[in-house]
């Protein structure tokens, strides 16, 4: 919605009248500012970020349910809760949902909401493209999950190795749903990556050099660069598989001379950067949270930035450590083993920097801070177990066992998820204008920590004692003697899952209980970065005037002045957060243009599942989907990004209704 303020300093309100001009005679824009239409057709990065987060959280619980079922099946020997077929579908979808439909979109939620605020922009570079990303993700996720009721979900594992993924070995449509669903959500990520890269490079506030950017924006930027180069690789792999399954190609047919390792290479060239895509946003979040609650700046900001970039870079060079047992030959394995050890170094740098950030600080243990410290502890454990399988010969014992499952759950849950929850608690007052309840938050945290350690800790033991992964049953015959045998630890792990699930539900309880909280102050945490120089929640146009940035931690420097002498630093508070915000409001811009909502992103997004269903079921749907896509693209191209100013003029005094025909705009 374009907002035009006539007198200065009046709070921006949405105009009561909009008379959208019809572009080219028949295409109008949506005009609603409230109700469901204002959400469905919005291009506002904040609304889009919130929708990303809500849908991602929904999928978190879907994936969590799948996990609970898996652990219920494995709590006892020769379990009967899930059949072999259902179990295989369950673990495939658990991983796919958690990775592609929860962690990545939740990180995108934060990136979408926070990056423009942190760099002092009013929106992202391509707002309609942003909306397209969101809706493509939503429809792709729904499409993927309709497989449950349409003949069975994918059952080849989230890594979907060939040739098991070919039609003779996976005869149901489940794999097709998986392939097409990931192609659709891949579009969302790829397009979002381009959008955010351009935003970060081009739309920073004056004075914000790259090394003055908030650290979360930096990490999110590295993530977008990773996405930009990794998503095309999996897209290629998925296209090869789709053509193999649906159009008779023979990319992975061994009788025709194919090498199944092709899929593994393609998948892991994407798959390894993917895990950094998963964890770096959480690293960025806690790099914001820890300094705020330690009352000191991030220790070694340049080191954290460069180590993030190094992780991104080197992350493309270690993919075959997922293939140490795949028969690559000792030279390749040695090279990748050493490279994998190398990548532990920049990660270690971060842990050191976070700990040193806390050192000498004045630690305030809010829930966000608890989650951030939890990340440091849990990720250290996960990272160290990762180092143990960088050693390739050891990895031939550990890979494909529960030891690996333990490792990646510690780094994904203990790393990415705890970081995301830290961000949720930290930025909730800014986004929704209310604080989340601290007592419920602490309960949420402790249940999650205890639950996660009880669930994934024993998996280290189970794995080293020889229980492979991806098995729908385990037997007494292989469980060993003694009380603390595999049976015991499997049971402990399953009980831990229940505690973890309760922890997750406590988050929902907290959200519910906090909905009637009093409005939160604009700066509840005495924070340091630019996004806090806004109201809570921010106004639609974010900043009344684009702030000029003089230093890293700009907000901090506006509140605290260094009155020390002779090289000594002594910071005195000279302004509260509210005063800084008021100062900005006093100099509000007179005329603010925002991008206008549009139908086309959601229409284009809608064409994709139709196309996908067509590939599986009927060529007619392919034609229909393609037609809708072409029409949507055409309509999008015809529509200007922002509605013209005249749309917001009041109707003419003689009351004549503006004509529906083309208006001569001389």
């Amino acid at each position, binding site marked *: 919605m374009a907002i035009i303020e006539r007198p200065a300093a009046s709070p921006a309100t949405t105009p009561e009248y909009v008379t959208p001009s019809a572009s080219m005679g028949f295409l109008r824009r949506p005009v609603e500012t409230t109700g469901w239409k204002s959400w469905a057709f919005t291009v506002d990065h904040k609304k889009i970020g919130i929708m990303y987060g809500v849908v991602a959280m929904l999928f978190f619980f879907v994936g969590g349910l799948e996990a609970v079922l898996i652990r219920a099946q494995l709590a006892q020997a020769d379990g009967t809760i899930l059949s*072999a077929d259902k179990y*295989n579908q369950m673990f495939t979808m658990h991983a796919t949902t958690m990775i592609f439909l929860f962690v990545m979109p939740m990180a995108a939620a934060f990136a979408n909401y926070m990056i423009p605020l942190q760099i002092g922009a009013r929106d992202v570079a391509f707002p309609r493209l942003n909306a397209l990303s969101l809706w493509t993700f939503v429809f792709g996720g729904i499409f993927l999950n309709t497989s449950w009721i349409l003949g069975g979900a994918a059952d080849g594992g989230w890594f979907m*190795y060939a*040739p*098991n993924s070919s039609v*003779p070995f996976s005869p149901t449509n489940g794999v097709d749903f998986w392939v097409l669903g990931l192609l659709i959500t891949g579009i969302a990520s790829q397009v979002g990556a381009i959008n955010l890269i351009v935003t970060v490079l081009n739309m920073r506030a004056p004075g914000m050099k790259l090394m003055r950017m908030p650290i979360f924006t930096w990490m999110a930027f590295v993530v977008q660069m990773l996405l930009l180069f990794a998503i095309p690789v999996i897209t290629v792999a998925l296209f090869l598989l789709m053509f193999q399954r649906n159009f008779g190609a023979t990319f992975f047919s*061994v009788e025709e*001379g194919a090498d199944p390792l092709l899929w593994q290479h393609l998948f892991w060239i994407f798959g390894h950067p993917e895990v950094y895509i998963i964890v770096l946003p959480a690293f960025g979040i806690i790099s914001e949270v820890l300094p705020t609650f330690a009352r*000191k*700046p991030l220790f*070694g900001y*340049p*080191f954290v930035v460069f180590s993030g970039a190094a992780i991104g870079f080197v992350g493309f060079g270690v993919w075959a450590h997922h293939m140490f*047992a795949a*028969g690559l*030959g000792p030279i390749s394995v040695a090279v990748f083993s*050493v490279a994998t050890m190398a990548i*532990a*170094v920049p990660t*270690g740098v971060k842990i*050191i*920097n976070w*700990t*040193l950030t*806390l050192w*000498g600080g*004045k*630690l*305030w243990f809010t829930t966000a801070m608890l989650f951030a410290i939890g990340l*440091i502890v849990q990720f250290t454990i996960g990272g*160290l*177990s990762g*180092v143990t399988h*960088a*050693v*390739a*010969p050891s990895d*031939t*014992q*550990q890979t*494909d066992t529960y030891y690996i499952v333990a490792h990646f759950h510690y780094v994904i849950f203990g790393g990415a998820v705890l970081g995301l929850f830290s961000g949720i608690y930290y930025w909730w007052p800014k986004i929704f204008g209310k604080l989340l309840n601290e007592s419920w938050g*602490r309960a949420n945290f402790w249940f999650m*920590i205890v639950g996660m350690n009880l669930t994934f800790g024993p998996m280290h*033991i189970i794995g*080293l*004692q020889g229980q492979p*992964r991806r*098995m*729908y*049953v*385990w037997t007494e*015959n*292989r469980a*060993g*003697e003694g009380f*603390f*045998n*595999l049976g015991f630890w499997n049971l402990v792990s399953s009980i831990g899952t229940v505690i973890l699930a309760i922890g997750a539900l406590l988050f929902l309880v907290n959200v519910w209980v906090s909905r009637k909280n009093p409005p939160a102050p604009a700066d509840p945490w005495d924070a340091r970065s630019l996004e806090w120089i806004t109201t809570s929640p921010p106004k639609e146009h974010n900043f009344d005037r684009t702030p000029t940035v003089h230093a890293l931690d700009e907000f901090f420097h506006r509140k605290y002045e260094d009155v020390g002498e002779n090289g000594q*630093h002594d*910071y005195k508070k000279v302004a509260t957060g509210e005063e800084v915000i008021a100062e900005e409001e006093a100099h509000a811009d007179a005329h603010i243009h925002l991008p206008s909502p549009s139908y086309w992103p959601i229409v284009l997004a809608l064409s994709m599942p139709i196309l996908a269903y067509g590939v599986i079921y009927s060529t007619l749907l392919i034609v229909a989907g393609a037609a809708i896509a072409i029409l949507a693209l055409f309509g999008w191209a015809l529509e200007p990004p922002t509605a013209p100013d005249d749309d917001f003029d009041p109707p003419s005094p003689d009351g004549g209704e503006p004509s529906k025909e083309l208006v001569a705009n001389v």
Partner: protein
Amino acid sequence: MESASTVTNMSRRVRIGLAVGLAAIVAGCAQDAPQDTWDPAGENAQMIQDLQWPVFAIAGVVGVIVLSVVAFVIVRFRDRGQAMPEQTHGKPALEIALTILPALILIGVAIPTVGTLMALNDTSDTECVVNVTGQQWWWEIDYPTQDGCGDGISAPIVTSGQMVIPTDTNVLVRGTSRDVIHSWWIPRLNGKRDMVPGRVHTVKLQADEPGIYAGQCTEFCGLSHANMRMEVIAMEPADFEAWKAKQLSDYQPPEPDTLAAAGESTFIAQCSRCHQVDGLEDADGEPVIARPDLQVYSGAAPNLSWFTTRNTFAGATWDLLIPECRAEVWDAPSDEVGQKYLEGVSPECLNSVDLREWLRNAPAKKPMYADPEQLEATDGLVRGMPNLALSEDQIDELVAYLLERQ
């Protein structure tokens, strides 16, 4: 700001709790887990263990240091109303040092890693070659004609599920797969190696002592991946010669007019389309050659010539021995294991429950794709053993016949 002290007290309590728990965990590991990766029984697994435990120790030490520092920081620097802390932006020298230190540790780890890797891949000292072929959801093991493996193998031996090797011999497993990717893993003898269709990979096995070493397929291969197991039985060279002699001996048809003789005809009628018994002749005296490539999508089925010389079946998923007899063999002391194994499966020790259930309706017992209505994707060929609708009498006959295959 509220309850900061309670939180940190909780933190401290939890830290102590975690430490105690860790100790309990380490102390409480399973005894004799058959697939324990920290209990090497051969030189290859030993090489891996010699590399693995120091790395674990280093990782453990680093972990304890980091977690202790974090615990210290949480307690020492919590908000007690102190003044605004010094706004340190970093100490480059310290950071560079703390970057170089882990790098040096990792270089120290990398060098023996590469050495062990090369040693594990050195196959020049091979004394015995065994071929392994993975298939959904069982392992075929065949011994090609060669001079090694003790006193040599004069003709190919084909079996499934259990690989018998002589102790103190460098065995080279040469493996591949007929359909999807599987993985051969005997944890106490060596790490795993993927068995990829169209490719051949090698992995060394060597056992110091006689014993039964359990393993499992460790690359997801479809519906019954969990039911695809195998064992390696290492026995003294003398016992191994006896085993070979048995496997290479001639077929002994059952005595006429016995249940087993009826079983032989039932076998020819019902089973020999897929399962090979070497030396079996039909009523006309023609050798019966099984052609599973015409029935099974992946093209092969287990060779049952000496079925009851081994003690697991159906992808080593079920025992052929009742629990008491099983314990006698599996838990036998190392000087008796070979002899006990060579005794095979006696009628008193036979686990007829599982065997009969399998013969009655195999797909109901082990998930497989053998339903004739649902074989469109594989041109009507099954993946696994179908339900042959055998009568109880036929099952009796077959069990009697199979008991004589030793």
